[in-house]
């Protein structure tokens, strides 16, 4: 695989945005490009992540693209997923070798509606969604499964809760660059040594909710178990999920979890996963770590998970 690195990151988290999507995205795009010393016309590929159900209108990504000012026309794509998967798509595109830079951004105004209920619409539309189980109730089922597994120490049992996360509005942007270009643009790029994502069944009843099988598979394919990260940024809106993830990732007590504060304190839906990658990369770039792990999640009870390993290179 071609060397690709995170060379800059910007995020904006607010309790309630007094701005539309484009106005949220504009400052983070400007700051991320500025930190990389790039202008929009220097970018080879642009990819974003968001969900229409947050804004409550179709095509919300269309308006947000105006924040980039795509004129002359640009090569651009969008995933209806957390921005971490937009970063994955951009990483794949950079492997082709014909371009050296990519801009990734994500946005979400989660506070516009009752997000706990809105997330119920991710469930099976015939058998589950009509019952409107809210996100926290589902997370509580997962916490219960973990408690019942008998695997937890007494101190961890206290952490196995499903307190609702603090929901915020936000946007984030990351600039990726390949090999030499990354080294030219950034004094210490955070190279992606491995990145992978996996999904599980949508049927909660067929999953062992106390284990995150998809995290384990993604971690294996991202080369996580051969590395020793100093930090792990985990996208766990609920504290019980953090325990499940640490277990799946085999993280020992030496690894500092969520030095940024994590998604429990600032859950910007659709953005929080990309922020984890940006936060981990920043700690590599500013020499706090030689290796860091970032994780992103999607769907109820950690249904889909992405692992991104970041490291400094000579």
């Amino acid at each position, binding site marked *: *695989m071609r060397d690709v690195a995170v060379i800059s990151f910007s995020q904006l988290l607010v309790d309630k945005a007094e701005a*539309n999507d484009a106005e949220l995205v504009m400052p983070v795009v400007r700051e991320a490009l500025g930190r990389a010393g790039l202008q929009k016309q220097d970018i080879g590929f*642009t990819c974003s992540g968001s*969900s*229409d*159900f947050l804004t409550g*209108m*179709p*095509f919300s990504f*269309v*308006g947000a*693209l*105006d924040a980039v*000012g*795509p*004129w*002359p*026309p*640009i*090569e*651009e*794509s*969008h*995933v*209806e*997923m957390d921005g971490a*998967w937009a970063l*994955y*798509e951009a990483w*794949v*595109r950079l*492997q*082709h*070798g*014909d371009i050296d830079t990519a801009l990734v951004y994500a946005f979400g105004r989660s506070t516009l509606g009752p997000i706990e209920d*809105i*997330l119920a*619409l*991710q*469930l*099976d*539309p*015939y058998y589950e*969604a009509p019952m409107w189980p809210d996100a926290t109730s589902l997370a509580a089922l997962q916490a219960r499964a973990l408690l019942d597994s008998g695997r937890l120490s007494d101190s961890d049992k206290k952490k196995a809760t499903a307190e609702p996360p603090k929901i915020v509005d936000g946007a984030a942007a990351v600039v990726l660059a390949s090999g030499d270009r990354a080294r030219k643009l950034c004094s210490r790029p955070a190279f992606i040594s491995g990145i*992978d*994502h*996996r*999904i*599980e*069944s*949508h*049927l909660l009843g067929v999953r062992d909710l106390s284990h995150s*099988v*998809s995290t384990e*598979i993604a971690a294996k394919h991202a080369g996580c178990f051969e590395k020793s990260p100093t930090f792990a940024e985990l996208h766990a809106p609920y504290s019980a999920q953090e325990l499940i993830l640490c277990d799946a990732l085999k993280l020992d007590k030496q690894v500092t979890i969520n030095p940024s504060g994590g998604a429990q304190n600032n859950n910007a839906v659709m953005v929080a996963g990309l922020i984890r990658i940006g936060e981990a990369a920043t700690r590599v770039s500013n020499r706090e770590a030689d290796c860091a792990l970032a994780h992103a999640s*999607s*769907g*109820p009870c950690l*249904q*889909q998970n992405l692992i991104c390993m970041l490291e400094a290179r000579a």
Partner: protein
Amino acid sequence: MNRCAVIGIGQTKHAQKRADVSIAGLVREAALAALADAELTFSDIDAVVIGKAPDTFEGVMMPELYLATALGAVGKPMMRVHTAGSVGGSTALVAAHLVQAGVHQRVLTVAFEKQSESEAMWALSPKFPFQPPLLAGAGGYFAPIIRAYMMRSDAPSDVGLQVAVKDRLSALKNPYAHLQMSDITLEMVRNSPMLWDPIRYLETCPSSDGACAMILGDDQAAKRALRPPAWIRGGAMRSEPTMFSGRNLVDPQAGRDCAADLYRQAGITNPRREIDVAEIYVPFSWFEPMWLENLGFAERNQGWRLTMDGTTALNGDLPINPSGGVMATNPIGASGMLRFAEAALQVRGLAGDHQIDGARIAMGHAFGGGSQFFAMWIVGSEPN
């Protein structure tokens, strides 16, 4: 960059309402057909890339989560693309990127829309900032653009009628097509109600339930395939701003740039001569001549001549939409992938009754939003 080929294609029977299947049943029908065509099973697939237009069309948020099981994606990577109406094309390109990057060997890509689950007209009437809400669906947005084309090009007023009839007659040769109107005539189209002047009822696409799936594979996978592969010779995406005074809505720069990039990759210098057949996204009849110009098949303001002189007919020199196109079948999120898949069927020689004899190079084209998003590919019976 690794080579990538289409080694399996499947689509559902498209209809106004597929009440016989759930959303999962619909996508699975297309996926199983594509796997059967490739003589593979879900266990041969490394990753799944799914696309559809806005989630509000079915009221399911990020439905890839719910569809992972139906598409055999459990334990695998699964991605969900959404780039407006161009999404079916973009989804195929994102899937191809995975193979071309060397990340995967075989990728299943699926696009769908089950429009009968809701009323797309309202979902297509979003309120844009600084604009009065049109509440008139896509037709309300595109009608003035078509009027502008008619005025600029001085085209005869019946060009749109010709396309409407031609595509519905072609659809009669495609057993999967939604509209099967054996009695269609120019008079019938002319006398149909005016919905959004100058767009008449029979000059618009239908609203369909349907899905399309393809298996994309690398060199080795293509070598092992029993049926002929369609080699991807080029693929490109372009986007431009929604609101910008410098835009040319009739002949968008993003479309021109996308085609130029595509032709450069495929080594095409004269698309009119070198491309044997094209499946292009024509949601309203007049978009055929407009896109013929935007794609470089005709000079500016001259595209309508190719429609009127029969060049774009099934038996013409440059058949456009032999499958019946979007004018006969429009599950919005899948419409772009259907164009890509139909182009691939042509160069594989597997298009059935609407096969164009000797098709070796074909184009698949999709656009979305208010003509600011484009995705295209060129496939060939041989690799580049």
